[in-house]
């Protein structure tokens, strides 16, 4: 089946089996291995990408359903703000919000969507949002701190 979509701002067209998951399409066909797969029951969130700016678990989406849509992965995130690092990536680094790094791409992609929806969140809101993202390494404490800081940075007035 033919699919045409935008991935990280680049037009992509491919002929793929209708059963192919978006996560596999990104990893195998597009060689974008920053999107990780940590489970087979859609619970871990390692695979979160943005579809038209909204965070979604790419292991639950069929690649063919992305026809005409715009997908952003961790590799393309910084490009959306025209910087070397997106403020949320920077915040994860500065707050030690990662250890092994496996959950990190999904965490960051999920956090960016959260930040867009919650310009001034509470810690509790961050923790509840992360229900769909599992991290085994960090105990979440520094991830939560990173998301609070990253959210603030994303909403800081320009030139601040």
């Amino acid at each position, binding site marked *: 089946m033919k699919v045409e979509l935008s991935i990280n701002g680049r037009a992509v067209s491919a002929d793929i089996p209708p059963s192919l998951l978006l996560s596999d399409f990104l*990893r195998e066909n597009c060689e974008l291995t920053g999107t*990780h797969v940590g489970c087979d029951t859609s619970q871990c969130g390692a695979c979160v990408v943005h579809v038209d700016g909204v965070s979604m678990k790419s292991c639950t989406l069929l690649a063919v359903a992305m026809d005409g849509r715009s997908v952003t992965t961790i590799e393309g995130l910084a490009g959306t703000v025209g910087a070397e690092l997106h403020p949320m990536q920077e915040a994860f680094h500065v707050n030690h919000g990662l250890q*092994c790094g496996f959950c990190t*791409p999904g965490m960051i992609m999920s956090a960016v969507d959260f930040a867009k929806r919650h310009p001034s969140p509470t810690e509790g809101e961050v923790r509840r949002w992360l229900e769909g993202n599992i991290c085994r390494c960090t*105990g979440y404490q520094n991830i939560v701190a990173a998301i609070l800081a990253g959210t603030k940075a994303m909403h800081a007035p320009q030139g601040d």
Partner: protein
Amino acid sequence: MNAHTGIGASILRKEDRRFITGKGNYVADIRRPGMLRGVFLRSPHAHARIKGIDTKAAAAMDGVAAIFTGADLAADGVGGLPCAWGVSNADGTPMKEPARSAMAVDKVRCVGDAVAFIVAETLEQALVAAEAVVVDYEPLPAVVSMLDAIRPGAPAVFDDIPNNTCFDWECGDAQATAAAFAKAAHVARISLVNNRLVGNPMEPRAAVAEYDSGRDHYTMWTTSQFPHVVKVLMGNFVLNIPQHKLRIVAPDVGGGFGVKQFLYAEEVITTWASRKTGRPIKWINERSDGFLSDAHGRDHVSEAELALDESGRFLGLKVRTIANMGGYLSTFGPNIPTNLYGLLLAGVYTTPAIHCEVKGVFTNTVPVDAYRGAGRPEATFLLERLVDVAASEMNIDKVEIRRLNMIDASQYPYQTPVIVKYDSGDPKACLDTALKEADWAGFAERKAASKARGLLRGIGVCTYIEACGLAPSRIVQSLGARAGIFESATVRMHVTGDVTVLIGTHNHGQGHETTFAQIVSEMLSVPTDKIEIVFGDTDKVQFGLGTYGSRSLAVGGTALAKATNKIIAKGAKIAAHMLEAADTDIVFEKGSFKIAGTDRSKSLGEVVGAAYGLVNFPIDVLEPGMEEKAFYDPVNFTYPGGAHIAEVEIDPESGVVELVSYVAVDDIGTVINPMIVGGQLHGGIAQGVGQALYENCVYDEASGQMLTGSFMDYCMPRADNLPNMQITTQSTQCTHTSFGVKGCGEVGTIGSPATVINAVVDALSHLGVNHVDMPATPGRVWRLIHNSATQLRAAE
């Protein structure tokens, strides 16, 4: 510069960049030309005889390159998976050590046992073909509970092993302990379960193997914490591949926690099959297969008694534990519930007599081995629960009973009655700080406030010690280790003065690329951005035993410091020549070699330049170049310890336990990077809280099926299950590691289960509850509240 990046600086991690930008290089990301995909067909039965495997139809399917069974491996002379640690029975005879073939041949012994490896052009084709493999099983009665397994007439996991018993191990002094009990004023008793856990690093296990027929050479990329050990065990003992023909690479690894520190059958079979097919093969475990094939952790049933005098002093401790080995012996399986458990039962107390018996039992379950903490969380949980029971029965304050029995700082080095000798520590200081940090004194007020909201509040304290820094080889070999557990590091100074370190430990989240760079930075005054830490590739790194048992900094870091000191020593000789001074007059300070007492000096950069440029270099007495290596075997374990305090609120209507605060005060020796240590503590505590409140691996006793085989049934802690934890370090220095470091990787997981359960029991103590088994799930807690309340009413 040095002040910024050396020891004690919370510098940000050097390794972060690739992970936050999606450029990590995990095994699943690796792609080789012509690569096939492999999947394992796993047994749906807990125990069954394999009467036949028909692969014909499957082999003929689209894209299938090959299908291999245990019989194929056996026919090709593939050996069994070795156990690297043997223990002895109390009578001195060796444990029962059944052979473990890489793939089941005649029998499967747990659900998830691999029976065939299907290799095809694509993953889909392999999966479809796997469905078409017909295995003729004759199901046998299975046994999954340890207590059932040792009952007369229980199904035999191995036909020739009576009572499913692997070993009957003991430590300590039975006679002295009996004598202590004979004069006890009070004996406190507890029976408890240490629940089975699945480690679940977020990256599933995976391997890519490639055989190069032109060179007769194998490379395997694997999700391993110890690539060199995989190379030795797999090359030497299983596949008979000479060491110089085998390269193991463990690139970025997405968490380990012990799960990835064993030799796994899948690594062996993928490597072997890459030669058979002549093509590279990638295998990635699915998460649900991970539940069925990653080695599990914990799984003890114990009874313990503590003898006390009338003032509450501990006189003796008796422990009897049954430990599940699973269906086979995993790489370190027998060591975990014996040496890493029994030898820690003194805790931070002066208990003079201890006797511990451990029975290792085979069942039709996934093999059990080390999981973060490995034995030490089990010892701490048992001891610290028992101390609370004793305090409550004798009506002694639970802090006071601990203080009364604690080893005083002045008593170190302290010889325990169970072999180990603690070199350093100050448990009372940790306890005092923890009480302050947690505002222990203000608890009554908080409890009243919770009560006003209809909630039961409890506070729990746990003090602990652990033995890590694996390992002093002489000691562990006397305890059954079949090899030494030293570490090695190479420091390569480039002509430009930049540094590459090659080290045998493995970084899979611990921040080694930063911490080890800080050590070199401290010693050589080279900024960390000029230092690269290389690990995980047996073709690059000389040798190494890997990362587990909180050993990387204590053992690897000390090897690194020793190698760096050799650089300094050689540099001093070069500088002496350059400065026309005697070697003995040269001192190395802040990156310069100086003639002591003068201002004449040569910088490290100038000296390294001379070592490679050979201008003004003592070529007659020194070799050119600047690269030094050290192998280091520690003289003792290190003994981190500490005191943790937690508060919980329980909703009596629902039984839901909420962890509302957590204070950890840990003595982990010198801290290199406080930020990284904080992260290790957070993660470790979260895993211990997971054991205490959420996680439980459950098998159905009748069928032997795992009931908790996915993240839907096995409850991993989520962000909203945890509070912000308050981490403090209060350190004494280890006496035998470089810089006095001890290790921090496991302390969080060791202290937290007991801390949290002590708090839960405290919250319910008014109902007469004196123990709650883990995990303290809402259902379990609600039933306890309900039943106790009913009983209390009936008694009134």
